């Protein structure tokens, strides 16, 4: 018996597997103690309960979405969702085409409207501004005193844009308590009545704005920085820089030329004309309305005044999104109650456990004690998979979905498959008459190749499903791929070394009848034919073969084992050569 070689290797491999498991466990334990990870895998919304929306972004003009645009789309939605105060929202891209928004619980109507709303940024000149509250009914401007346009408006700041309807709307608008109903997108060629919502350092303001003069898509970039003083020293004031493209530069120059005049004129009178302001409008809401303090000719305006680092960054980001008029279409929306999710998880786990039990019973039934190796291997594979999922949940925010659970359950069978392929090979080798130690070695050599090839097919399928799939396919594909890898590790690092060690034991090595590797039961014909009990009386081909002259009919041919074949071959050669000889003799 080969005592040293395989046995030592086997032990070494097993130790390595132990090290891997220990390291993974330690990593997870460390993460858990640091309060960042948790022992339980993170659950996706369909198990935890919540809302999942799949949105298809659409860029105006019908062009396709590239990856950068999609990432911006995600940033837009993330900002909107975060802004609406929803904690723990998950926003991600899917298959490079969709944006998936997952929110715990049922989102408020406002949040939902906010998410679907299109990002639409424009620059409009301000015509009139006022405090955010609605004008009380008693002090509304009487019908006959409403502003009456006297002529067609000539430019964006022309007061003739303000019709009685627009003015009435302006008076009635309440920006302190805005309704979040999703409205139709405003007409860029018409005046707009809207709010600048209250922020940390300013109350809500309402505006009448002129038509769109510069489009958000004319923004080439934006940044934020600490403002420099006259001497070039950095001050404590934050500033936001915009950079327009050529078209934007020309248009913005024309606008600031006009607005700056209003500014100069009003300052001369010691007042401040709102018409000197231009409003940056995102999704029909004013996000900032700076005053034109100069004519900007180079297309690089800087906005200053009362910014904190955060607010400067926020505005800068919003301006960047403005360069991209993305709108979203809800492809599918699912609201799953926590009760249903929990129930599905329970049922899924129950089904998985029963499935596992059935596989265990079947393995024990088919492979006797060898089935225990299957069970142990499944346990190790399960541990590896579990640790991987928990760690990925911590580091990559991987969440286990119902489809993922299904993948895990399906994987039980696929994992056990590799063992079956291996065990059947060992049995084949035993049938050839080898001893268990060499049967394990030889069977492994052959099974290894098959297992690798077939796992490659599994992995390929998982990868394709993962990268091309839509909807909940990903979770399934992910667990399927993960378990395929875990399976490979287990077969190579656990099942095979374990069998190498077991083949040295008396129970397995001598083929106990419950070992699942009983040569007698496997109909093995030892190469060494010492013992008389080897042949069963009905094993005719062997008898026939030994009686040289009977020859082998085609029927009997098929019944030969390799051992017999070799013998037959030798006989054949002898017979053949003698025949040839006789032929030559004739």
């Amino acid at each position, binding site marked *: 018996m080969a005592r040293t070689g395989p046995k030592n290797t086997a032990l070494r491999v097993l130790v390595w597997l132990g090290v891997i498991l220990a390291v993974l466990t330690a990593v997870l334990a460390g993460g858990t103690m640091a309060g960042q990870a948790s022992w339980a895998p993170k659950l996706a919304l369909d198990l935890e309960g919540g809302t999942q929306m799949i949105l298809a972004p659409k860029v105006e003009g019908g062009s396709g979405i590239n990856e950068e645009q999609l990432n911006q789309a995600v940033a837009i939605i993330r900002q909107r969702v975060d802004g609406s105060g929803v904690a723990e929202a998950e926003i991600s891209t899917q298959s490079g085409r969709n944006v998936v928004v997952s929110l715990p619980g049922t989102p408020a109507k406002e949040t939902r409207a906010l998410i679907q709303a299109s990002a639409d940024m424009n620059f409009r000149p301000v015509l009139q501004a006022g405090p955010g509250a609605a004008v009380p009914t008693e002090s509304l401007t009487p019908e006959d005193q409403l502003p009456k346009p006297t002529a067609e408006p000539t430019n964006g700041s022309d007061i003739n844009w303000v019709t009685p309807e627009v003015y009435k709307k302006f008076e009635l608008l309440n920006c302190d308590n805005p309704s979040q109903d999703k409205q139709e997108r405003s007409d860029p060629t018409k005046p707009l009545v809207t709010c600048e919502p209250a922020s940390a350092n300013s109350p809500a303001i309402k505006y009448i704005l002129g038509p769109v003069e510069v489009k958000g898509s004319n923004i080439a970039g934006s940044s934020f920085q600490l403002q420099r003083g006259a001497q070039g020293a950095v001050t404590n004031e934050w500033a936001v820089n915009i950079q327009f493209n050529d078209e934007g530069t020309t248009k913005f120059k024309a606008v600031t030329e006009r607005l700056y005049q209003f500014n100069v004129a009003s300052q001369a009178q010691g007042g401040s004309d709102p018409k000197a302001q231009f409003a940056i409008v995102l999704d029909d809401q004013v996000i900032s309305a700076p005053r034109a303090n100069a004519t900007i000719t180079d297309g690089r305006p800087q906005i200053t005044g009362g910014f904190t680092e955060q607010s400067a960054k926020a505005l800068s980001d919003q301006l960047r999104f403005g360069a991209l008029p993305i709108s979203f279409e809800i492809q599918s929306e*699912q609201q799953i109650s926590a009760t249903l999710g929990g129930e599905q998880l329970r049922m*899924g786990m129950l089904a998985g456990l029963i499935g596992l039990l059935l596989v265990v019973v079947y393995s024990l039934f088919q492979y006797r004690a060898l089935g225990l190796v299957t069970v142990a291997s499944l346990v190790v594979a399960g541990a590896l998979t579990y640790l991987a999922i928990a760690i990925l949940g911590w580091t990559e925010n991987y969440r286990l979905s119902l489809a993922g659970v299904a993948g895990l359950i399906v994987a039980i069978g696929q994992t*056990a498959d590799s063992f079956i392929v291996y065990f059947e090979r060992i049995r084949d080798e035993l049938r050839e008459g080898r001893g268990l130690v060499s049967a394990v070695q030889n069977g492994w050599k052959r099974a290894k190749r098959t297992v690798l090839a077939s796992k490659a097919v599994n992995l390929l399928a998982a990868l394709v499903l993962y990268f091309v799939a839509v909807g909940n396919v990903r979770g399934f594909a992910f667990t399927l791929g993960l378990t395929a890898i875990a399976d490979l590790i287990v077969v190579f690092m656990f099942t095979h070394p374990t069998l190498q060690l077991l083949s040295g034991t008396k129970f397995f090595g001598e083929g106990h009848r419950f070992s699942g590797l009983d040569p007698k039961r496997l109909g093995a014909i030892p190469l060494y034919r010492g013992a008389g009990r080897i042949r069963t009386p009905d094993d005719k081909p062997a008898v026939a073969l030994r009686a040289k002259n009977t020859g082998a009919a085609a029927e009997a041919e098929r019944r030969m084992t390799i051992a017999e074949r070799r013998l037959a071959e030798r006989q054949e050669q002898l017979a053949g050569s003698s025949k040839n000889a006789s032929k030559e003799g004739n």
Partner: protein
Amino acid sequence: MATSFANFGNELYTGKRSYDFVDSKKIWFLIAAVLVALSILLPVAKGGFNLGIEFRGGSEFTVSNVKTTDPALGEKAVKDVVSGSVPRVANVAGTTMRIQTDKLTDDETLRIKDGLTTAYGVTDNEVTSTFVGPTWGADVTKQALLGLAIFVGLAAVLMALYFRTWKMSLSALVGMLVTMFITAGVYALSDFEVTPSAIIGFLTVLSYSLYDTVVVFDKIRENTADLQASTRRTFGEEVNLAVNQTLVRSINTMMVAILPVGAILFIGAGLLGAGTLRDLSLALFVGILIGTAATIFIAAPLYAWLRQGERELVKQAARVQQRRAQAAAKAETAEAPATA
């Protein structure tokens, strides 16, 4: 039974018991052709598959733990909000109701949700709603087909590289296609809903089908490796022996693959009703059975058939026949003196 099954395995291995998969290929191919044709014609005759809401577009509510399973309550709850609609209300499993309607607005969805909560006497937490836009299904279908094409392409290359013969690759793919068509046919016949989950199951079946074929073909390759130097069996007979020798493996593999899937299908889904788990497991259950059969009855015989015309193999077959004839003649002459 274990003993007899092990015996069964031994007999298959030694060739004592042998099922003729390769020689009767015409029958298998005919059966497969008929089944595939039926699988194509059946959905056409029935006017397509029973598509899930993901493909049709619309809104769906699931109410769990209902006090009563009267569908009229659900219909009323929907009609109270959208008067002209024709909701489809069904008791899907145990105490779960499913209500499907046409596309609803956000507001209608919330109001119907409230209505259903009251009607079935459940809490807010037990009503789940799904809205699927009209373009979603097309998107899913497109991606599924794309995935299918990429997978088949890559698998073909992978197998051609591994087996180093395109004939094996082709045979395996044909086996897979047969599995695919018949699984789809069973779906059409059973009138189960085709949902994205069913499609995932379907794609997984393709992977299983190839996986299974790879294992059997590996044995075929092993058995036929030194065929040229031997006159014991013809190529077809070697293929048949390989299939027989891996039959126990095929059955065992199929069993362990199908047991967990069956557990989901009959235990999880039976108690829980329609959903990801059931749709996925049904496709897998059917597909694994057919995939295993397709390897044995279609892929392997097809491979033998594709290669039997090769000059080298024809020559080898002739040598086998010649030797057998000689052996038979020798056996007769050997017997003659004994009888005399």
